[in-house]
C-alpha cells in the first residue's frame, strides 16, 4: 500500500507539472492546449536527440552527445519555440472562436507534431537513459529508483518556480493582470499579445520538462503523449483549472488513486482516474478547489 502511494506520487507529480500548463493558458486566454501531451512527447524526443545525437527515423547519427543538463535545456528551448508557433498559428487566429473551434486548432497542431515525430524517430518505442542510471533505493520496505526521486524533486521545484514567478515578479504580475481582465491590463500598458504568447511558451516548456522526466520511466514514442495529456487534463479538472495548488493536489490524488486501484487489476488502474473525476465533478462542478460560478444578471 505504502509502495503504491509512493509510486503514485511519482506519476502524480508529473501529471501536476503538465497540468500547470493548462492552468497558465486557461487563466490568460480561457483556452488550453489539447495537444499538451504531444508537446510532452516532443520534449522527450528532443531530449533524446540531444542525449544520443540520433534521429532513427531519418537514420541520422551526428555523434554529438550532450550532458544531461544541456540536453534538458535545449529540449526546453525547442518545445518552448513550438509553443510559440502553436500560439501564433492555431490559437491567436482562432481567438474569436467558441471553445470548440479553439480546441480543434490545438488538436490539429498536435496531430501534425505526432507525424513529425514519427518521421524523425520512427514508430518504435525508444529507451531513454536517466542521469542516475538504474540506481535503486530501499527503505522501510519501499523501493524507489533514484530517477523517481529526481522526478518528484524537479517537478515540485519547477512548480514552485512558476508559482513564485507569477506571484513575485513584475512580469508575473503583468501576466496575472491579463488573467484577471484583458482589457484593463491592456489599458495599463501591458502587451496582452505578448503575455498570451508567453503563456503558451511557458505551458509548453512545462510539458517538455515533464517529457524529459517521464521518458526514462515510460520510454519515448510518438504516441506517448495522448494518454499522459489526458491524465494531466484530468488532474487539472479534479483540482480546478483556476487553482495551481488545487492542480498539484489533483495530480497527486490521481497518481495515488491509479496505483492503489492498480493493486486490484490493471483495468481498475486505467479506470480509476475517470471514475474519480466523474464523482468529483458530480458534487463539485468546478473541481475540488474551483470557485462556484455565479452568473451576473
Amino acid at each position, binding site marked *: 500500500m505504502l509502495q503504491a502511494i509512493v509510486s503514485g506520487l511519482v506519476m502524480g507529480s508529473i501529471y501536476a507539472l503538465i497540468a500547470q500548463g493548462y492552468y497558465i493558458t486557461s487563466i490568460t486566454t480561457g483556452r488550453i492546449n489539447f495537444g499538451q501531451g504531444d508537446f510532452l512527447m516532443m520534449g522527450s524526443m528532443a531530449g533524446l536527440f540531444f542525449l544520443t545525437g540520433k534521429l532513427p527515423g531519418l537514420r541520422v547519427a551526428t555523434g554529438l552527445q550532450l550532458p544531461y543538463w544541456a540536453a534538458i535545456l535545449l529540449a526546453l528551448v525547442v518545445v518552448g519555440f513550438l509553443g510559440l508557433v502553436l500560439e501564433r498559428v492555431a490559437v491567436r487566429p482562432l481567438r474569436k472562436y467558441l471553445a470548440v473551434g479553439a480546441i480543434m486548432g490545438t*488538436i*490539429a497542431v498536435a*496531430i501534425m507534431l505526432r*507525424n513529425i515525430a514519427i518521421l524523425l524517430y520512427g514508430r518504435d518505442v525508444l529507451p531513454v537513459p536517466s542521469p542516475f542510471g538504474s540506481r535503486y533505493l530501499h527503505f522501510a520496505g519501499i523501493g524507489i529508483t533514484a530517477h523517481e526521486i529526481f522526478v518528484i524533486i524537479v517537478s515540485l521545484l519547477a512548480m514552485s518556480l512558476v508559482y513564485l514567478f507569477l506571484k513575485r515578479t513584475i512580469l508575473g504580475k503583468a501576466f496575472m493582470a491579463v488573467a484577471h481582465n484583458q482589457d484593463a491590463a491592456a489599458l495599463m500598458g501591458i502587451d496582452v499579445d505578448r503575455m498570451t504568447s508567453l503563456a503558451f511558451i511557458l505551458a509548453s516548456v512545462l510539458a517538455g520538462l515533464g517529457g524529459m522526466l517521464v521518458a526514462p520511466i515510460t520510454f519515448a514514442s510518438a504516441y506517448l503523449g*495522448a494518454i499522459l495529456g489526458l491524465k494531466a487534463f484530468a488532474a487539472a*479538472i479534479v483540482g480546478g*483549472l483556476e487553482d495551481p495548488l488545487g492542480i498539484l493536489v489533483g495530480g497527486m490524488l490521481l497518481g495515488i488513486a491509479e496505483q492503489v486501484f492498480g493493486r486490484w487489476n490493471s483495468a481498475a488502474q486505467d479506470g480509476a482516474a*475517470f471514475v474519480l473525476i466523474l464523482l468529483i465533478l458530480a458534487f463539485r*462542478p*468546478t473541481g475540488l478547489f474551483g470557485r462556484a460560478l455565479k452568473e451576473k444578471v
Partner: protein
Amino acid sequence: MKRKALSFVLRVGIPAAVIYLLPFVYPNKFFIDVLQQVGYTWILVAGLNLLVGYSGQISLGQVGFFGLGAYGSALVAKHFHVPVPLAMLTGVALSAAFGFVVGLLALRVRGLYLAMVTIATGSLVEILANRWTSLTGGPMGIADVPRLTVGGAKLGPVEYYWLIAFTGLLVTLGLYNLVRSRFGRTWLAVKNSEIAARALGIDVLKWKVGAFVLNATLGGLAGAFFAHQNSLFTSDTFTYDVSVRSLVAVIIGGTGTMIGPVIGSALVIGLPTFFRQLYDYYLLLFGGILLLTLLLLPDGIGGAVARLWKSFRGKARTAQLDRPEGSQAPLPDFLRRTDGPPVRLEGLSMFFQGVKAVNNLTMTIAPGEVHGLIGPNGSGKSTTINVITGIYTATAGQVSLGDETVTSRAPDQLARLGMTRTFQNIQLFTDLTVLDNVLVGFHRHMSAGYIAHLLRLPSALREEAAFRERAMAILQFVGIDHLAGEEAKNLSYGQQRLVEIARALATEPRVLMLDEPAAGLNNVEVHRMTALIREIARGGITLLIVEHHMEMVMELCDAITVLNFGEKIAEGNALQVKSNPKVIEAYLGGDDVISLLNGEVARHVGD
C-alpha cells in the same frame, strides 16, 4: 409551389440519387466498405452536430455511445438469438440510456469541465470494451456476429451500404425538420442564454439532457450498423480517436449545418483511405487540412456552402420583404387580462457571504398596477428582482403570487405560473431572428411534440402558423414588425430592448418584471418605451419596474418603493416619494444637499 418542388429535389432527390449511384462508381469491395464506414460515421456525427451546434454542449466521448450501440447489438443478437433489427434497437436503447446518464452528469459542468466529463464517460466504455474480455472478447474481438438478412438471405455489401446511407439521409431530414421547429429554437435559446430561456418557462435541464439522449441514440445506431458490418470486430476500434474524429468532422463540415455531417464524415473517413500511399504523412495532411479549414472557413465547409447559397438567392428575397418602418398597433387582445395577481414579499432577505444585499423587505405589488422599485446603485433592486424570479435563492422571507407561495421556485416554474421578466444586460438569443426570439416566448403554450415536428405533421405546422401570427401581432405592438426576419444581434440597442419585451409578452404573462427598460435608450426611445409600458399596464398585467430614469418612473408608476443599502426607506405614490427627505438624502447625500435643493442654489442650477 415551384420553390417547394425545387427544395424537395435539392434536399431529397439529389442526395438519394447520389447515395444510390455511388456504389457503381467503383464497384469493388474495398470502396463499398469505405462507403459503409462513411455512412455510419455520418449518423454518429449528425447527432454530435445537433449537440454542439444547437444545444451548445460538447462531447469528446462519442466513442462511448458508438461502443455501447455496437456491443449491445452484437451481444444481444449473438447470445439471445433475437432478430438483428431487434438487437440493433436494444443497442440503441442501451446507448440512449447511457446518454441520459451522461447528460445528467453534464448538467452542472461547463466548457472544459464538460469536455472532461464526456472524455471520462467515453474512456470508461473504452476500458470495458478492452478489458472485460469474457464479454467483449477485447482485442481478440467478437466473432460470428449475426448479419442482417432479408427473407433468409444475407444482405450484400452494397445493399447494406444502401440501408446505412438511406438511414443517414432519413436521420438528416428528420433532424432538419426538428431544428427548424420549436425544438431547434428552444435548443438555440438554451445555447445563447440559459437564464433568459428559463425566464421564458423552458426547463433547461430537460432540454440539455434531451439533446444528449438524442445524440446518444444516433451514436448507438451508428455503432449498431458498425457491429453488423462484418462478422467480427475487436475492441481496437473503440478509442479516443473516434471521439476526436467525430468532433473534427462536425467542425470541418460546418457546425449546425445540415449538410456538414456528411461532408465531415466523408473527409475524416475518406482522407486516410485515399491517401494510404502517403501513410507516413497522413497525420500531417489531416492536421493541416483541419487547421486550414479552421483558419479559412470559420463556419466549416457546410457554412461556406450555405453562405454561397444565401447570397445566390438572397437578392430576390430581401427586396420584397422589408418595409422601412414598423407599425403602431394596439396591445393584442390575447394579452389583455383581468387576472393580474398581486405579488407579495414578506421579510425577504438575500445575503451574499455577509453582505446584506436585500434585508427584510416587505412590499406588495397590487394586482394590475405598475409598481416602481428605485434606489441608488447597489441598493438591492436587481437582487430583489432576481430573488422574486427565482434566479437567486432567498436567504429568508417569502414571495407569494396571488394566493400561492412561490419562494425560491425555479424561474421556469414561475414563468409557467405566468411571471416573467426582462434583463438589465440584454439577454437575447443572438443566433435567432427577431421573430424566432418572440416565438421562443410562446414556449409554454406550444404542445406539438417531438414526433409531430420530426415528421412535420399538419398539427405541428398549424400550431407554428398560429403562433407565428401571434408573434407578429406582438411585434407590431412594440413597433418592430419590419425587423421580424433580422438576426437579433444586428439590431440597435433600443430595438433589442423592444425584442426582449416582445419576447416576455409572448409568454402571455400575468406578472411582468422589467429590469431597467430605459437603460441605454435615447430620449426619443425613452418616450416610446414609456408609452409602450403604459399600454401594457392598461392591458391588466401586473408590472414591476426597476429603473433609474426618474421621469419615466414618476410618470408610469402607481406606487413606488425606494431601497437603500438593501432596506426599504420609503413607499408611496410619486409625489410622496419625491418629497420624502430620506429619499432625497439617499440619492444626493446629507442634509446640506436638502437645504441646497430647497434653497436658492437649486433654482440657479435649474436655469
